[in-house]
């Protein structure tokens, strides 16, 4: 059974903006799925419809086979949602927020209190359980929303930009936690601006732009579609001229940094061989930009150009 099915989902807001123009999407049970797209692409609208915070214009939404038009309560009980912005009462304590949320999902209070201890400890918030939510740091607030979303142990967890604005250490620990609960069977759908996050965590990906899905594949396949990557080589000795690299485009970013574009099918060994022949030693190497980011920009750009061409004809 699929965790989520969207069929021909559309949303037109009262001001006439068509946020979704017929989206079809399927997410398998147990998947760790990335929904990517630029600002205003329709990600949050799609999530809003699935979590019933936004009313759809047309189309079908099924959560574990439960159609939200016919079995809304059951569908809702399967979903946990972590929104982009803090949406809890800033004047309530951490523990009150999570225990009450469990209550709204029909979890008895004594069970909710036990779960609150488990999740708040896992997310390093137990020591702050009596603190007023307003006093928490940005990272703590994000973790609080994750704990709150898990209190009814949902089968599908939807996270809308969960690590936006949190420091690297907190982000890494949240990644570990999300991997853990996905490993325990929870299906996770993630939207993020940090494409590195999607590349690290997710097995499948959909890219949404202008209210349409423009790419839907496994993360591995999507990354294979990259036609070229730029590698940054740190040179041991300073250079004033670009080394001769036949078949490759290369530029000197500074006297110790060489950037080489390697197209699909080309071997990095040829780069190293030519540099060795010239007596150039390399200390280290990295990708210039995140690979998914590169692909993302190209997809969105090519779509923009196609749209512009269409408009001209």
């Amino acid at each position, binding site marked *: 059974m699929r965790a989520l099915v969207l069929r021909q989902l559309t949303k037109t807001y009262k001001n006439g903006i068509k946020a979704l123009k017929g989206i079809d999407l399927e997410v398998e049970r147990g998947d760790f799925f990335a929904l990517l797209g630029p600002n205003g692409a329709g990600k949050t609208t799609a999530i809003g419809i699935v979590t019933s*915070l936004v009313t759809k214009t047309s189309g079908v939404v099924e959560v574990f086979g439960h159609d939200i038009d016919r079995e809304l*309560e059951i569908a809702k009980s399967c979903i946990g949602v972590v929104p982009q912005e803090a949406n*809890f*009462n800033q004047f309530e304590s951490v523990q009150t927020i999570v225990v009450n*949320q469990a209550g709204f*999902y*029909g*979890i008895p*209070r004594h069970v909710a209190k036990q779960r609150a201890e488990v999740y708040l400890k896992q997310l390093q918030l137990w020591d702050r359980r009596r603190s007023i939510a307003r006093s928490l740091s940005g990272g703590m607030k994000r973790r609080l929303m994750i704990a709150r979303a898990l209190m009814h142990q*949902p089968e599908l967890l939807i996270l809308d930009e969960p690590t936006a604005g949190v420091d690297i250490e907190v982000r890494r620990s949240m990644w570990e936690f999300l991997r853990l609960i996905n490993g325990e069977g929870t299906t996770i759908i993630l939207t993020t601006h940090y494409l590195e996050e999607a590349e690290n965590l997710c097995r499948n990906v959909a890219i949404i732009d202008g209210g349409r899905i423009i790419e839907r594949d496994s993360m591995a396949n999507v990354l294979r579609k990259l036609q070229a990557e730029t590698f940054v080589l740190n040179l041991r000795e300073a250079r004033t001229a670009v080394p001769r690299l036949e078949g490759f485009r290369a530029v000197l970013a500074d006297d110790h940094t060489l950037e080489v574009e390697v197209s699909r099918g080309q071997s990095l060994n040829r780069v190293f061989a030519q540099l060795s022949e010239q007596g150039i030693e390399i200390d280290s190497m990295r990708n210039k930009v995140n690979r998914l980011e590169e692909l993302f920009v190209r997809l969105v750009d090519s779509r923009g150009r196609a749209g512009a061409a269409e408009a001209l004809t």
Partner: protein
Amino acid sequence: MTAPAGRAAARWIGFRTTLIREFGRIVRIWGQTLLPPAVTSTLYFVIFGSLIGRRVGQVGGHDYMQFIAPGLIMMSVIQNSYGNVVSSFFGAKFGKYLEELLVAPLPNWLIVLGYALGGVIRGFMVGTVVTIVSLFFTRLGVLHPVLIVSAAFLTSFVFALGGFINAMLAKNFDQISWFPTFILTPLTYLGGVFYSIRMLPPWALDASHANPILYMVSAFRYGFLGTADVDLRLAYAIMVIAAVGMFSLAVVLMNRGVGIRD
């Protein structure tokens, strides 16, 4: 996911949680919810009851202080039931934590009922506080306890729902003060809280019968004093119809997502 005992049990827990949260809010901010009515009603009793009341004499066969005490209690119940829901619901909407309820598997009618009964709880808590204050100034007998409780319940339920509907429709904080300032307060003051409508000239007496608060105050006062300005059956019919009508309207607005869903 742990399956709750059943849908009814899950709904009951969700509903109870809404009430617990509302009760927690009332108690947490007691300085805004419970204390001001005590201070205000004390001032009313001192100024209208002791100072002016002595010169008024008897109203409907009762001391003026005794006459206004049920009215002042009911006025506090009305204002606080209304005020509780309008501020709690609009605060949740404005602070976006209403989403906690909207994403949960609770039917809309239960969310409306939870907030409305939260308002009733505050109405009863404040009503009790004002009753205690009144006992420092006058003696209040309880002739018909069922009438007192039922009239207070229906009235606070109606105005709690009024607060809910106002909060749903309001787009900013200004709009949640319009209704209490321009409609609720005038109707309350003209609803027989401080006087018997029999003291009014004929045209004003007739006009007063169009004020629903008159029926609520009168029914409540009858429970204490055994006298009323209106027919009790009509008073209860108006309260029940208003409660059902307001509840239905609030649920319809919730189902349509007015002011809360895009």
